[in-house]
């Protein structure tokens, strides 16, 4: 009896001791790249996280690429392409000199196999499928030509195709492994090969010496990095520490408070990279008192000293955001900058107009019992709670734990308190609780933002029937701007549509934008040519160079 348990103990100990042998890798410089989050899955066709793209961007090539400087679409696996006049189909002419890491030749069939996989319902794609928009199918014209067909024109297509989620995987490998196991055996055509992936521990890439078909902005450095080991550093306060101690040579999402330390360290480098998409923002619930009032919404933005927030929470590493898109997003309009500068006086007078003319014993504004003269009656929509006199100006914010949003909310609370707005903060634990809170409708502000170079991201939040329409706002005009923005192939038309949409969103004060997202990357000084792609998150590892070659031998 006792022996049995001792045996069990020994087995357990043995299990514990097994940390897995290191795989054999060719000699050459080796670095550790710190990822800030551990994705639950690493299959770019299936999973949706940005972190998976940090390594995998260099494992796969995409049909097209975006030049990180100009934002232009440049040839990738497709040497050129054309769109039909009606915008319903795109024909891609593929390179003929490309082969996958496993030797499989790249051709139109390979693209077809990938499209099949991504669009098949049983694949359960969480992002890639939706990046293809209203795709209806494809035609393989010849061995190196493929035509993608759409039921409706879909302007964001090239941007989608330039992202790793639509990277082209080896058909041979896809045939060999199923949807659950392919992520451990990924094979692409990119400048790095995947050596191994140990969930929760590491993902290792090694340089693909055969790589000759990179996009124009891939420039081979003098001292390339042979092997890159991606490890997970999910705890923000210890990320900078790992760089200093040499546990990692590159690290994303350094805490702003540590970035200052890092900038002063001669052995380390700081690379702040702006991320296109939505800024850190609070969506305002237009269906609930008091944010159902346009005037109150405007007042809330006027009452916010964003520069002070950026100063304290982000150590001035971020530009203040004034609109629904960050400055590096396609079709960002600088016109939004005129909306609602910090002006507490203006905020107060707006609140006065909205009926909040008195202050209660706690210093919070209230709508007095008798109607005050010269004030506008607060908007009453059928879905809003009934406005009773004497109700204090109480605003509820739902904040997720990430992105220093709780800190931002606390400063908001302190700022708003001084002019009589009572902000109640409810920090939730994750996306599921955020979604639950949104569904309950019991909020005035809720913070969520997505990233992406193409402004089509706005449609997920501001179209009337969008699943994430958490402002509850419905406007035919805005719907038109957003749907036409996604349909019109002509960039100039798109630009005017999205400019109108951004202005409309700010005119209606649907969001309280705070700051553009800046990814604070840190590296050791030995790493050079540190560059990122147009989406901001993904490093161009091929270009990275390392001083003192032979360091990793």
């Amino acid at each position: 009896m006792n022996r049995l348990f001792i045996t069990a103990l020994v087995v357990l100990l043995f299990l514990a001791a097994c940390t897995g042998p290191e795989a054999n890798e060719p000699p050459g410089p080796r670095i550790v790249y710190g990822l800030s989050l551990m994705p639950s899955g690493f299959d770019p066709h299936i999973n949706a996280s940005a972190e998976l793209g940090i390594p995998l961007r260099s494992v796969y090539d995409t049909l097209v690429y975006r030049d990180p400087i100009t934002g232009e679409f440049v040839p990738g696996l497709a040497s050129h392409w054309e769109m039909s006049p009606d915008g319903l189909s795109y024909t891609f002419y593929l390179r003929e000199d490309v082969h996958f890491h496993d030797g499989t030749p790249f051709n139109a069939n390979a693209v077809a196999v990938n499209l099949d996989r991504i669009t098949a319902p049983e694949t359960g794609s969480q992002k890639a499928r939706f990046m293809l928009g209203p795709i209806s199918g494809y035609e393989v014209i010849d061995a190196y030509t493929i035509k993608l067909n759409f039921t409706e024109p879909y302007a964001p297509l090239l941007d989608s195709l330039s992202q790793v989620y639509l990277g082209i995987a080896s058909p041979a490998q896809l045939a060999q492994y199923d949807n659950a196991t392919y992520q451990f055996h990924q094979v692409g055509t990119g400048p790095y090969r995947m050596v191994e992936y140990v969930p929760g521990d590491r993902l290792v890439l090694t340089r693909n010496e055969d790589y000759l078909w990179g996009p124009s902005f891939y420039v081979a450095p003098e001292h390339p990095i042979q092997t890159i080991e991606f490890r997970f550093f999910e705890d923000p306060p210890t990320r900078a520490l790992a760089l200093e101690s040499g546990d990692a040579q590159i690290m994303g999402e350094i805490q702003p408070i540590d970035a200052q330390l890092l900038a002063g360290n001669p052995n380390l480098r700081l690379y702040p990279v702006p991320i296109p998409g939505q800024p850190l923002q609070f969506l305002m619930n237009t269906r609930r008192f008091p944010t159902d009032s346009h005037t109150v919404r405007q007042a809330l933005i006027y009452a916010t000293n964003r520069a002070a927030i950026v100063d304290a929470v982000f150590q001035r590493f971020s530009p203040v955001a004034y609109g629904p898109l960050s400055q590096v997003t396609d079709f960002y309009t600088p016109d939004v900058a005129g909306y609602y500068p910090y002006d507490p006086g203006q905020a107060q007078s707006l609140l006065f107009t909205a009926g909040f003319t008195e202050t209660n014993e706690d210093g919070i504004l209230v709508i007095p019992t008798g109607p005050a003269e010269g004030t506008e009656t607060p908007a009453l929509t059928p879905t809003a709670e009934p406005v009773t006199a004497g109700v204090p100006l109480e605003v509820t914010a739902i904040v997720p734990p990430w992105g220093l949003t709780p800190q931002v909310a606390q400063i908001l609370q302190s700022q708003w308190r001084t002019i009589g707005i009572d902000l109640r903060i409810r920090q939730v634990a994750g996306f599921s609780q955020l979604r639950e809170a949104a569904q309950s409708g019991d909020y005035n502000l809720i913070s969520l933002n997505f990233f992406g170079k193409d402004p089509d991201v706005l449609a997920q939040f501001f179209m009337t029937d969008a699943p994430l329409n958490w402002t509850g706002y419905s406007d035919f005009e805005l719907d038109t701007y957003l749907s036409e923005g996604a349909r019109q192939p002509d960039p100039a038309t798109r630009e005017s549509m999205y400019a109108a949409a951004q202005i409309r969103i700010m005119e209606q004060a649907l969001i309280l934008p705070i700051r553009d997202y800046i990814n604070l990357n840190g590296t050791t000084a030995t790493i050079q040519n540190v560059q990122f792609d147009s989406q901001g998150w993904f490093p161009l590892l091929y270009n990275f160079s390392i001083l003192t070659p032979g360091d990793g031998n």
Partner: protein
Amino acid sequence: MLRFMRQRLLSTLLTIWATVTLAFFALRVIPGDAITNQLLQGGATEAEIAAHRAALNLDSPLWNQYLGYLGGLLQGDLGRSLLSRQPVNVLIAEQFGATIALALSALGTALLLGLGLGTIEALFWPRRVGRLANALSIVALSTPIYWTGTLAIYFFSTALGILPATGSGDLRHLILPAAVLGFHASGGIARITRASLRHVLEAGFVRTAYAKGLSKWQVLHRHVLRAGLPPVLAVIALQAGFLLGGTVITEILFVRRGIGQLLQSAVLEQDYPVVQGIVVLSAIIYSLVNALADVLYGALDPRVNTDLQA
């Protein structure tokens, strides 16, 4: 003995069934699931989400899903993660080693420290050494693990730079978390060791042993520890549960891979099959550890053994 084993097995299975059932229904109190969350963030429409859920059988009646899950469980199949599509067995197996490594090395630390402090306390009370050991063991019980952890990271990683702060790679990554968790768990062990040894020290046979002229150390070795340790072992079994709970926050704090991390993300992302799998694991470990404690207790204390065989 056989009857005892059979009862044990039965109660173990019952506990597992009850915990799984509880977890299965409790988890579904919140609407939504991991896949809905992911799809929403990926840009899917409501119709597309509904189609996905249907494909994963998430829209069938709860009883149906429950029976299906139990059926799988009987065959040792814990289902698949909604997010990574990996079999839950595999996900848990991958992380289990790291958690066990942490738990066992922490248990080792806790035992050394706890038995040592407790024995010193029992023997040297009320002298200064005894009081110091007492104070230390209470500090261990009183300091929140995240506070000890923060201080440890600050001293050993930031200031001295001799140990990595977070992560899970080689043995160096294990030292800080194991020490912090072990220190924390040593308090309870010290406490019970002290109580048990003091009790024995007062017992008649110990006085007799002294009277026979045995030296203090001989008495300690032959009589006191022999008689005083069984209750300590029982508490260590309780500590094992405590340690597993402690590994969760330790893993989160030191960002170590392991069951704790897996559980935290699965709970927050509503990846039900993974949470249920960990519940099953937890129930199994709990039952095993308790059975182990009973058996060890019996082996070391003959009275209990006869009781069992009766």
